[in-house]
């Protein structure tokens, strides 16, 4: 534990901490361009120079480990002169185009130039010109502005695991680029825009759309997957202008996926902005809220409770789910389900449907077995953590399921579920690795859980967890994980939005609808079901997009998207998180729980809450977990799963198009471009390789 003195303040730091980090701990700010806390150290921008006693030259503080007895000065005239010199060199080739640069106002170079820049340039020759690169539909480039910090290269190599970017040429001819000009094939590529300290890499969809000082930011939670990334919604007036990550060490660190970042333009298209009801001509006509509710009430009145069913979609907030659950209970229907993808879990103890290891906990694991999942597409930020562990400790990963490139070496065991049984019996080569691991983890994806034998697989997984010490008794390690892909899922399971004893699940509801056992279905944002079997059923669709669900609806109730309401979500780890309303819903659309509350009046079962606080109190009443925000409540390890035989049908992939998985991203122009350029490329390559 070296002790050093920085600007007359003594500090003791851990081994391996750099001078820059030690200074940061003391609250001393040192300007940087190439240093990034989440990336490896490059030390090539030289902006972080500080003076070290007994050293004849200034040192780069980002790359210098703190050692015993160092005396550092960060504010001397020599340091200032050195930094001014570095900055002057950086500015030699940097264009003076701040007025037309999208980074303007949030640019590190601009800010640091205010502190260390000269008032005029002493460089009389021409600046160099660098051709712009095509990095795909998300990243706009202006390579003249690049200062060669290499953050983007390191991000691609280290975090994203797609070593496609590099620095070619040298000296004045150095350029950042790819080997063959093509889109970056990563789901995390948008983060390069954030880490670029200048305006060389900017957001293509947001280009020339706004200035940072015009935007107001709202902290929120991402709903495009079940990771629950911390995001910031930047709005201007009633429009969502962009979405950026918020730092959250427990969940997404500094990053978010491209879908979370860029799918927001889907919020502007195909929105439901007023209620509709089907007329006698069989077409939807705009109606008032009261008329819409009356149509529903007329239908529901004549039906017995168990002829009505409700399905909850993947992006719904728990406030709306609890309201719908209360309404369905009042109606007397046991047919409620939140697992529109046909997943079979949720009845067991909480540990049977959570990502128990926690996302940050992945870093501790020393062996990871993936079953029926493709974390790169189902949860890019969880995949990034697995990769982080692989980089730090060389984590070995095995995959049982459809093969996919994950960005780290994976031993592919095949896609035959019978291998799972073999592993349990210790007859598979991987059993030895599982046995010798101290902190093994297994991740069961939806590809394994929406099969007909899901509960048997779950039971097998439980046995494997017991046999191979995946769940420790003495310390808190629990390596048993379920990876969800729907943001609403864990919250809905925690609220018990599942078919009751005589209740139907999603597939039975759809079957029942065809057989007239179910005569009315309430879809709350549920679009990813086979809606064709609902053609002749009375369907109420409540949601924000005119997508699959609304296409078969008899009554459409316009709800709010995640940016337009304050909601509570539970992520795949079981962390309860709250988002805030950033903009108002369009037209006559309302917050979802309010719609259900209003409908309950018309149906004659008045739900007992009139404010958001009341609904949240009801959430806590149903499940006390909802009282604890942003924390993990450890789920106890109990028995779950069933005995039985495993079907031989192979594990299948659940997502075949990462960029278009839900009603928002399906209507996003940016996502459509990504699907075409990035995923299209990848698929073509795969076909080519075969």
């Amino acid at each position, binding site marked *: 534990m070296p002790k050093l003195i920085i600007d007359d303040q003594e500090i003791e730091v851990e081994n391996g901490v750099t001078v820059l980090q030690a200074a940061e701990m003391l609250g001393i700010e040192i300007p940087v361009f190439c240093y990034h806390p989440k990336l490896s150290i490059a030390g090539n921008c030289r902006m972080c120079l500080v003076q070290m006693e007994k050293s004849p030259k200034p040192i780069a503080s980002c790359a210098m480990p703190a050692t015993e007895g160092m005396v550092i000065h960060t504010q001397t005239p020599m340091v200032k002169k050195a930094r001014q010199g570095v900055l002057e060199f950086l500015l030699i080739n940097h264009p003076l185009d701040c007025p037309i640069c999208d980074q303007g106002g949030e640019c590190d170079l601009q800010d640091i130039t205010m502190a260390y820049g000269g008032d005029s340039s002493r460089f009389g020759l021409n600046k160099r010109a660098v051709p712009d690169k095509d990095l795909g539909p998300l990243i706009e480039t202006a390579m003249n502005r690049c200062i060669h910090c290499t953050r983007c290269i390191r991000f691609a190599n280290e975090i994203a695991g797609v*070593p*496609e*970017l*590099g*620095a*070619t*040429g*040298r000296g004045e*001819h150095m350029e950042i680029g*790819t*080997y063959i000009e093509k889109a970056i094939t990563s789901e995390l590529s948008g983060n390069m825009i954030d880490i670029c300290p200048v305006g060389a890499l900017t957001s293509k969809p947001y280009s020339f759309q706004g200035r940072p000082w015009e935007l107001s930011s709202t902290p929120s939670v991402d709903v495009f997957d079940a990771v629950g990334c911390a995001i910031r919604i930047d709005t201007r007036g009633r429009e969502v202008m962009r979405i950026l990550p918020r730092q959250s060490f427990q969940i997404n660190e500094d990053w978010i996926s491209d879908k979370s970042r860029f799918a927001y333009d889907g919020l502007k298209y195909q929105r439901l902005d007023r209620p509709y009801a089907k007329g006698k001509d069989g077409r939807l006509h705009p109606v008032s809220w009261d008329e819409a509710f009356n149509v529903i009430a007329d239908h529901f009145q004549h039906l017995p409770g168990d002829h009505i069913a409700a399905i909850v979609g993947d992006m719904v907030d728990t406030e709306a789910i609890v309201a719908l659950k209360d309404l369905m209970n009042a109606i007397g229907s046991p047919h409620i389900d939140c697992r529109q993808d046909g997943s079979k879990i949720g009845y067991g103890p909480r540990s049977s449907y959570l990502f128990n290891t926690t996302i940050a906990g992945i870093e501790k694991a020393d062996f990871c077995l993936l079953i029926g999942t493709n974390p790169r597409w189902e949860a890019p930020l969880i995949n990034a953590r697995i990769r982080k562990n692989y980089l730090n400790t060389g984590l070995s990963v095995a995959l049982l399921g459809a093969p996919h490139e994950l960005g780290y070496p994976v031993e592919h065991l095949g896609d035959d579920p019978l291998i799972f049984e073999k592993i349990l019996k210790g007859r598979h080569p991987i059993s030895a690795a599982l046995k010798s691991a101290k902190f093994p983890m297994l991740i069961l994806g939806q590809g394994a859980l929406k099969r007909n034998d899901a509960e048997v697989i779950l039971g097998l997984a439980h046995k494997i967890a017991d046999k191979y010490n995946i769940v420790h008794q003495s310390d808190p390690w629990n390596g048993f994980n379920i990876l969800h892909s729907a943001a609403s899922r864990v919250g809905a399971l925690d609220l018990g939005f599942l078919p009751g004893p005589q209740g139907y699940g999603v597939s039975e509801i759809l079957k029942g609808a065809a057989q007239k056992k179910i005569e009315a279905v309430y879809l709350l944002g549920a679009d990813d079901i086979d809606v064709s079997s609902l053609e002749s059923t009375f369907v109420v669709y409540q949601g924000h997009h005119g997508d699959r669900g609304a296409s078969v609806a008899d009554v459409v109730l316009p709800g709010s998207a995640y940016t337009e309401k304050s909601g509570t979500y539970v992520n795949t780890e079981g962390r309860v998180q709250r988002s805030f309303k950033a903009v108002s819903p369009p037209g006559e659309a309302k917050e979802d729980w309010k719609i259900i509350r209003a409908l309950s009046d018309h149906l004659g079962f008045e739900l007992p809450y009139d404010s958001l606080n009341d609904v949240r109190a009801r959430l806590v009443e149903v499940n006390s977990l909802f009282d604890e925000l942003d924390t993990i409540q450890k789920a106890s390890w109990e028995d779950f799963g069933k005995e039985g035989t495993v079907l031989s049908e192979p594990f299948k992939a659940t997502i075949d198009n990462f960029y278009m998985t839900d009603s928002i991203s399906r209507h996003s122009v940016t996502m459509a471009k990504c699907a075409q350029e990035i995923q299209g490329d990848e698929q073509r390559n795969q076909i080519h390789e075969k």
Partner: protein
Amino acid sequence: MKKSVTHYETFEFSEKNKKKLTDILTRYPEGRQASAILPLFELAQRQCGGWLPGSAIEKITQMLGLPVIRGYEVATFYTMFNLKPVGKYHLQVCGTTPCMLRGSEDLKAACQKKLSIGLGETTKDGLFTLSEVECIGACVNAPVVQINDDFYEDLTKESFIKLLDDLKEGKKVKAGSVIGRQGSAPEKKGDHAQE
């Protein structure tokens, strides 16, 4: 000068070079084979007649388990890798200070006039490519021109043109000092045209 990859159908090491390749790879400790990238690029460049096609970069990086961009970075960093085809004789005129003071500018101008090519260009007959290089470490016998692997020293306009004529006619030329001095021994008075 911007460098870019020129693509070439496919690249395979010749049988003879495959043996050399195994030899090169064994020079590095296990797990450090990526370090062989420079000698392998050189081997490939020699095999391809003085230049390194994109397909060779792809082949070699794949062989060493590297992303192709890493090989491309290396190939563009080192100026001695030619990413475009070069002539049979690659004339590399040293333009750094000592050679410049001893008349390398004249050599360049004379050569450009004689062959009707600019810097970085190749003659139509595919015999000569002219480039300017930085110090090649033979300042004692400046001005120096490196042609393929050999140095030609103590050149003058006239002797350089003669050298080019000889090469064009396929005559055998002698590498080293054109005024016949041994190593960098002091030259006899009157040996050098400029004196």
